[in-house]
């Protein structure tokens, strides 16, 4: 279906609080890094895909104008993709389709956010419509708080166990982040540190929550023919999936979470994956909150319904486990939203290309990347492999 497409390289900024740099320069840093990483020039590139969170985030509308030069897009065809938190994944999908359709050979895909210049929770509150939802779903924690409680009650899992599993995820990821040169929050935590941190929105505590980050990511994709010429170890795109469900938060089951199970089914079918836990070597799950990562393990078939806590506590999803999840530290440690899901794609590609440095999972051949967005309404997936 379509032409083969591969990721031939990527670039990330150092993510964090980047008050020393303007927003366009932040974008420029990622673009430059990607060009250096792939050792190509703009002459080799046919088009640019860009996206971020909505304009309220940084107070500039339609930022593709403002960043035209930083994106090196002047005189170039461009697409502007935005789908909320899934933006980064939708960006990667746009690049894929542009090339797979035959309308371009090499595309640079860029996502960014400079969250310290705005108020992310105020922005996120405006994702909810002004009549009903906006009054009680304030910001992102409100949504994930309800989803966490729904999870405990649906499978009748003792709160202590879910709490422990979530704490384990937090401890692991914050430690993993030390090996990722781009990660924002790197900290050595104990289980008790997490469990005793202050409540944000019950049952979510401070160390269950991702930070605000300034950051950008650029990924370069190429058609099969070009990829073989331009890269020694391209990461081949094997599967894609995207699905959206109900906007009205109370109208859908967010545990037997259809947009997650359907999106992943599309991707597994395309990639021919039957047993994800066995076949996948590494997964970059979009985990802005610890609890939602547990839920994703189940929705993505990494384990059965209600089993995530036990397996997480056994270390199945830790870096040395059977299916390492988020060896980069994930969204939990670094979250420049418009770039976040694209970072998952870049990290998964680095893993199968063997370029992940200190957080490389040895011998990774098949990797999974994920984005989550809307009011827990969108899930997007991309699967990459070292073989075509």
């Amino acid at each position, binding site marked *: *279906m*379509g*032409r083969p497409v591969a990721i031939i390289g990527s670039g990330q900024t150092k993510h964090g609080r980047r008050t020393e740099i303007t927003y366009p320069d932040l974008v420029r840093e990622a673009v430059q890094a990607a060009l250096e990483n792939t050792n190509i020039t703009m002459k080799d590139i046919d088009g*640019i895909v860009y*996206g971020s*969170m*909505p*304009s*309220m*985030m940084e107070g*500039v*509308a*339609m930022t*593709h*104008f*403002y960043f*035209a*030069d930083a994106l090196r*897009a*002047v*005189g*170039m*065809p*461009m*697409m*502007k*993709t*935005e*789908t*909320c*938190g899934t933006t980064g994944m*939708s960006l990667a999908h*746009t690049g894929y*389709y*542009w090339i*797979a*359709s*035959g*309308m371009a050979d090499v595309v640079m895909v860029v996502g960014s956010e400079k969250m310290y210049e705005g108020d992310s929770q105020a*922005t996120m509150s*405006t*994702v909810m*419509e002004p009549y009903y939802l906006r009054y009680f779903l304030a910001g992102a924690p409100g949504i994930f708080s309800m989803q966490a409680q729904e999870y405990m009650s649906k499978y009748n899992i003792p709160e202590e166990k879910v709490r422990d599993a979530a704490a384990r995820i937090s401890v692991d990821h914050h430690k993993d982040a030390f090996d990722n040169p781009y990660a924002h929050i790197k900290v050595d935590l104990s289980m008790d540190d997490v469990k005793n941190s202050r409540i944000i929105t019950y049952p979510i505590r401070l160390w269950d929550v991702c930070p605000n980050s300034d950051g950008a990511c650029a990924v370069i994709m190429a058609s099969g023919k070009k990829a073989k010429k331009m890269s020694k170890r391209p990461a081949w795109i094997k599967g894609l*999936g*995207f*699905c*959206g*469900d109900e*906007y*009205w938060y109370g109208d859908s089951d967010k545990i037997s979470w*259809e*947009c997650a199970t*359907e*999106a992943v089914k*599309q991707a597994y079918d395309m990639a021919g994956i039957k047993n994800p836990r066995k076949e996948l070597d590494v997964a970059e799950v979009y985990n802005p909150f610890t609890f939602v990562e547990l839920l994703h393990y189940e929705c993505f078939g990494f384990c059965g319904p209600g089993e995530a806590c036990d397996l997480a506590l056994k270390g199945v999803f830790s870096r040395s486990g059977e299916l390492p999840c988020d060896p980069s530290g994930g969204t939990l440690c670094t979250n420049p939203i418009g770039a976040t899901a694209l970072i998952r794609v870049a990290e998964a590609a680095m893993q199968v290309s063997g370029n992940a440095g200190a957080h490389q999972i040895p011998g990774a051949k098949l990797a999974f990347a994920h984005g989550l*967005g*809307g*009011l827990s*309404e*969108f899930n997007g997936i991309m699967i990459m492999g070292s073989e075509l």
Partner: protein
Amino acid sequence: MGKRVAIVEVAQLPGAMSDANFLQQLFEVCREVMDKAGMSRKDIGTVVSASSDVFHGGISCANAYYWDSGAGFLKSGTRQDGESLLAFQYGVMRIMTGHYDTALVFGVCKGSENPATDAITHYFADPFYQRQVGLNETFAAALQMREYLNTYGITEEQCAKVVVKNLKNALGNPYAHVKKRVTLEEVMNSKRVMDPLKEMECAPQSEGFVALLLASEERAKKITTKPVWFKGFGSSMDTYYLGDRNLLDGQLRNAAKRAYDMAGITNPWKEIDVAEITEAYAFQELLWYEGLGFCDPGGGGKLIDTGLTERNGDLPVNPSGGVLAMNPYVCRGLYRLAEVSLQIKGQAGERQVDRKVKTGLAHGTHGFAGQFHAVAILKG
């Protein structure tokens, strides 16, 4: 290039302010396009929408808000922001790969609930330099128009003629927002909003809900006897700071060349039978004639004088009335495309052009003085 792709049906809502709720309007237009094709929501492969956030509609991640009303429930979909022609391009790409047989492409903009367009376009300006001088799209257009008049000796009357032509065309368009017959004197005497731009030379602020159903060749032939084929697409982005740009020869030439090359068009004036272009300001229609290669640089004024771009002319431009008659900001590109499709199908009613239409062009632009342009070529 991948598989052939066609527009099989289109639906659109009128641009005047409506009491209907945003979601209701979107539902209606999607329902209509599916009914025309004899399809249900189940038959839709993928959904690509076009919209903008917050300033356009008061909601961030608007695609999340309208997802289910736009037939997206449990479907794969995505969105393009700013220029809705990009949503068309993306829908085409998705079918070309063979992943999907059909794509629902729509654009939404509830203009009546938005702040004034220029209050929004002001936020395209960076907060440090351009926003401080009050730059917005009308401001940038006025500078561009002055330069156009000065450089080529184009007259203000020639620019005003575009309004007379397009609003006359709009009288035959049931979806147009502004419907009135105007004279050259009325346009020339309307208030100067930003010298030399006059009030009647600036597009209104309209509602817009437009949906197109795309299909692969096999599916298209089953759905309609009059498929409208995708032939070419091109876009191009210009540099950001207005002072750094050539306002009279920006990126349109580049975007058009890409589309023409893909469609195999070498002489646009001869080969294109109808064009719908985004002229948010009257003079821009003349300037875009030049960028699209309909005439030489500086020839836009003479071209409008010949009357050849009238509805009964050699190359009718904006038979729908164009953006001057209806301006739903984000989705105006898709409205252009819908009109070209209807013209090719021969279903444009009263506004059907006199000549036989085989090849059509749709153009979209947004940003200060046309920072970004997109051009699509369709064929019957």
